[in-house]
């Protein structure tokens, strides 16, 4: 193999390049990225960067010395629009065509939005550095009423940051219990109470019917008829895997690029990693995308080995892990919570917002959740073992 094209120029792409070189691959690597930036770290975009405590340079994922070592040709500000596996070409929006012996798909995901948001100033989604720069400018404009749509982790972090900047914040969530799908009902309630602890209004069980305003947003209309006045709206309602450009390639796409446990797709010479890849996961017993930073850091090693060996090479994986920082609380979850898994408190107490809970399913520890308890969390996450597939299937 003499040339590899990596599409997407973010965490999973850079991690794949590092892994390819670490595995001894010496050929050409071209990275194609739609954004104009070299890979940068997204988690601070909703936290320290949004608040103004970090500048863009501090987000860089690698420095010039490392880039020199990695010997990558960067095609930035270029969107891939087509992959033709038979001809081994990738077509860019500019019309340019690139030939490579193999391809890595690391195009991540893009935020979903709501109807009527387009063309209305003051309405934001948050995925990229450019998004964060625009949102930060708007947050610092002194317009006080912020409505965050969606109480998932990104919505919660943005709400927390806006609150820390002294703005008046309301969070609207369609589900009855925020984060229920990720943490279960009980812990979803506990973690979302961080909003109300700090005087941020949380409205649950109500959808958004639309936005009001001409030119610039003035309010959010709820499904129950209420109108929330708003100077600024942040839409945090989840993401979609960035796979549209793969149409017609013959690759199997179904909520992500479908892969096996070795990150191999249905077409030899094409692998995927990061938020875009849907792989079977021994820890969750599911075939799913994992939208976490640590997955985009670790999974590329598997993808690189598969690509270089020419056969799907599954490697041992860690339980899925993510963290979230909100209102001075650090939330960490490892493993996977399915409906019905019961959390059991093993340290601390809920009231003080410093605790560790372990979730059990049919006698197996399947997940551990910690709030402000990093040390015990580090220990317990290592005790999680893959759930036997029969047990995983038994979960609804």
């Amino acid at each position: 193999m003499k040339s590899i094209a990596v599409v997407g120029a973010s965490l999973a792409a850079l991690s794949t390049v590092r892994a390819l070189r670490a595995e001894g691959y010496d050929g050409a690597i071209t990275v194609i990225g739609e954004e104009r930036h070299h890979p940068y770290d997204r988690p601070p975009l909703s936290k320290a960067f949004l608040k103004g405590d970090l500048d863009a340079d501090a987000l860089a994922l690698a420095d010039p010395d490392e880039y020199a070592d990695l010997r990558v040709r960067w095609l930035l500000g270029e969107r891939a629009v087509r992959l033709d596996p038979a001809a081994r070409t990738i077509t860019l929006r500019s019309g340019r065509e690139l030939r490579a012996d193999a391809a890595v798909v690391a195009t991540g995901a893009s935020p979903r939005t709501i109807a009527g948001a387009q063309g209305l100033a003051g309405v934001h989604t948050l995925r990229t550095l450019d998004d964060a720069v625009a949102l930060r400018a708007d947050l610092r404009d002194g317009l006080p009423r912020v409505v965050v749509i969606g109480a998932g982790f990104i919505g919660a972090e943005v709400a927390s940051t806006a609150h820390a900047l002294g703005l008046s914040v309301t969070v609207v969530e369609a589900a009855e219990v925020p984060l229920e799908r990720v943490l279960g009902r009980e812990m979803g309630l506990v973690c979302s109470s961080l909003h109300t602890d700090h005087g941020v209004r949380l409205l649950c069980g109500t959808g958004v019917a639309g936005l009001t305003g001409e030119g610039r947003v003035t309010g959010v209309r709820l499904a129950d008829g209420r109108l929330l006045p708003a100077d600024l709206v942040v839409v945090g309602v989840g993401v979609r895997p960035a796979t549209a450009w793969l149409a017609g390639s013959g690759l199997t796409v179904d909520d992500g690029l479908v892969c096996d446990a070795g990150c191999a797709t249905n077409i030899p010479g094409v692998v995927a990693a990061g938020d875009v890849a849907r792989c079977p996961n021994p820890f969750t017993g599911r075939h799913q995308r994992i939208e976490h930073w640590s997955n985009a850091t670790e999974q590329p090693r598997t993808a690189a080995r598969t690509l270089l060996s020419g056969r799907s090479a599954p490697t041992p994986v860690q339980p899925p892990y993510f963290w979230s920082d909100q209102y001075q609380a650090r939330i960490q979850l490892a493993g996977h919570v399915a409906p019905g898994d019961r959390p059991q408190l093993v340290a601390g107490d809920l009231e003080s917002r410093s605790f560790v809970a372990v979730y059990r399913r049919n006698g197996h520890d399947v997940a551990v959740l910690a709030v402000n308890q990093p040390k015990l969390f580090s220990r317990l996450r290592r005790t999680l073992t893959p759930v036997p597939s029969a047990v995983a299937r038994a979960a609804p």
Partner: protein
Amino acid sequence: MITVCRIEDLPPGEALRVTEGVPAPIAVFNADGTVYAVDDTCTHQDASLADGWLEGCYVECPLHAAAFDLRDGRPTCPPAKVPLRTHRVTVEDGRVVLHVTVGEPA
């Protein structure tokens, strides 16, 4: 010089965070009988390494799993790129003693 604790209070595998009398928090580790001291705050973002996972003479950050070699403070894998400052620490008469000069990088 700061007396951190008695050596019995820092058994192998354990760590302590020192915040008093030092310019920035320092983490002191007992790695299988050898005592090490490094800056407590991970050079990547914002986590306390005294909360990390100790394995041999390496500590893994509790937030994003960068690992550091306690002997020289060097990170052994991303995301950390910058080494930790190391500090001299000794055991004297059963006491763990940290040798730091306030205000000066060690």
